[in-house]
């Protein structure tokens, strides 16, 4: 029986670690589903968990590259706060005076500013680490303190709110979604793209005469991939928008509401951003020279240098990318709350590192996947939301997450030893 299962997994060519993480996720969902009388498994809860995961997961994809190159970034939580506060002040205090309140360009300028600011701060840290050879732990620990302090100076500690209405859509909420029709269109497009890419890869492999999976295995994987995508869209499209929010939207758009009318959320915009980032970062990791050099440098820095790779510049680029992703996460986090106070992003660096590590990124460098980090973030958020919904108080939540983190890494170490890598 066990052999049969192993054989099946081999044929399908699925990573055993990926299966383990999905298994853990399903267990968490089922257990909390049971203890909440099914409330945890409602479309509403899945929608909320997906939105709450987005900010940390976006940063976790960047943290994978940082950790793979044998570095660490402790500054992302503070940097998120600093960027969030600066960009909030920009759209609350500066841009309305220049452009006029509610001007259509405000959200674009704010979003671009957030990403640029992150990239510049990150590149500067990367330069100190790569060229001045100060250890990443120290540089980003410094950044952790500096950004949190700098955040206070931006507005003398004043909370900035409310944010630009269009900017707020980037954080989700009743308005910040694709809506039903667009969500389905997105789902169909993603499913077709996934199946198409698998077909393309299969054709390339067989053109080179490499071993390919049996037709049934490939077909099963295509059905699973397309099914998961459409299932996700279906769940998001099953969460009705509350009456109050419907009236607000209807009033804003001048639509007459009738009694029987129900609108559904669909895929939230921050989740869409996360999916785009995940696909983009996966392409970078697996299909670009930059990605290849990141893994080579993590595996053997000396070999990478002898192969002509500029590992110092690589460090700058990796941290700049981490910063840019922190900028994106900052947009999501501040837009979701519609306000920025001096506590924004506190402890996020640890959540991000934990997500990457639970997702199978080795702190010794060289190993780690983007999808793993995203699932890691989802596992952590599911645990935390689940515990909150069964009434576990915050200190105990932290204790449980702490134990889970250590346990997950221990399992990963045992797995690596068995697999001989």
């Amino acid at each position: 029986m066990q052999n049969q299962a192993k054989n099946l997994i081999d044929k399908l060519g699925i990573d055993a670690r990926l299966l383990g993480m999905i298994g853990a996720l399903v267990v968490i969902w089922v257990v909390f589903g049971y203890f909440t009388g099914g409330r945890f498994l409602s479309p509403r809860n899945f929608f909320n968990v997906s939105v709450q995961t987005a900010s940390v997961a976006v940063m976790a994809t960047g943290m994978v590259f940082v950790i793979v190159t044998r570095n660490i970034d402790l500054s992302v939580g503070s940097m998120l706060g600093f960027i969030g506060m600066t960009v909030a002040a920009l759209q609350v205090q500066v841009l309305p005076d220049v452009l006029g309140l509610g001007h259509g360009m405000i959200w674009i300028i704010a979003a671009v500013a957030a990403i640029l600011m992150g990239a510049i701060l990150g590149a500067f840290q990367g330069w100190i680490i790569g060229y001045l050879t100060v250890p990443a732990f120290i540089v980003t620990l410094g950044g952790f303190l500096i950004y949190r302090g700098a955040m206070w100076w931006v507005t003398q500690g004043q909370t900035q709110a409310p944010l630009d209405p269009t900017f707020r859509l980037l954080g989700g909420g009743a308005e910040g979604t694709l809506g039903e029709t667009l969500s389905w269109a997105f789902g169909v497009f993603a499913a077709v793209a996934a199946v198409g890419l698998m077909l393309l890869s299969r054709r390339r492999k067989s053109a080179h005469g490499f071993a390919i999976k049996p037709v049934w295995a490939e077909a099963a994987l295509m059905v699973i991939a397309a099914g998961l995508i459409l299932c996700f869209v279906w769940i998001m499209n099953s969460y009705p928008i509350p009456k109050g929010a419907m009236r607000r939207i209807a009033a804003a758009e001048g639509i007459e509401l009738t009694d029987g009318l129900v609108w559904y959320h669909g895929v939230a915009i921050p989740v869409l951003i996360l999916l785009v980032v995940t696909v983009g970062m996966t392409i970078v990791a697996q299909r670009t020279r930059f990605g290849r050099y990141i893994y080579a440098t993590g595996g053997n820095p000396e070999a990478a240098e002898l192969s002509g790779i500029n590992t110092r510049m690589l460090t700058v680029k990796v941290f700049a990318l981490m910063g840019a992703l922190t900028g994106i996460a900052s947009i999501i986090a501040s837009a979701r709350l519609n306000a920025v106070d001096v506590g924004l992003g506190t402890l996020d660096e640890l959540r991000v590192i934990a997500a990457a590590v639970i997702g199978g990124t080795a702190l010794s460098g060289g190993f780690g996947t983007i999808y793993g980090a995203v699932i890691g973030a989802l596992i952590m958020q599911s645990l935390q939301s689940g515990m909150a919904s069964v009434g576990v108080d915050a200190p105990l939540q932290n204790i449980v997450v702490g134990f889970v983190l250590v346990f997950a890494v221990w399992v990963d170490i045992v797995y690596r030893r068995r697999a001989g890598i």
Partner: protein
Amino acid sequence: MDKKTPLVDMRDIHISFGGIRAVDHVSVDLYPGEVVGLLGHNGAGKSTLIKILSGAYAADGGEIYINGEKATINNPRDARSYNIETIYQTLALADNLDAASNLFLGRELVTGLGTVDDDAMEAEARKIMGRLNPNFKKFAEPVSALSGGQRQSVAIARAVYFNAKILIMDEPTAALGPHETQMVSELIQQLKAEGIGIFLISHDIHDVMELCDRASVMKNGKLVGTVDVKDVTDDDLLGMIILGKRPGEDTPVV
């Protein structure tokens, strides 16, 4: 052979690390189709000398001529542009990547979109490995899963694939069993016949006597001398390595 232009001519090379003269005004040369052994104790400076040629270190002074023209080698990329390939003692492989990724590291094949073309690289890797080591089958695993000999063949394939004109081998047989050592010896003969010049760094006098045409011996960062292997005995070479004396001379040069 002496009438031709040397493939590599390193003149008066010197480099110091923190006041220690690792390489002290050394000159060596190499002709096409020739194997030159570099001998000496640990710390004699042979690896350092060769790392200057492969671009890993920048010399403090001296000149390098490739095919009679002055060459500027500041980094491994420069060395590769002169068709200088190096097989390091440590093999310089990224253990977490597969054979094809290591073979093409720094010189990946790309698709029309500019993305790395793993399938094409694997196909090429299969071709060259089929020539060098037909038993090699582990193309999907990271190289950490390979044996010492298999790792060595990946490192050799990397040098051979890119049409090396000048090949530097640093202790190529140090970690190998007898069968694999034989394989490397045969490969050296084959590459030599193709007109490639090889610098062979070795501790092993027997290797040098068997494979090399000439031997340059270093001691304490200085060149003791360069001899034709057919003119000297094992003991002559040992005397050069240990005592720093040239054959037939009484006083040490170094």
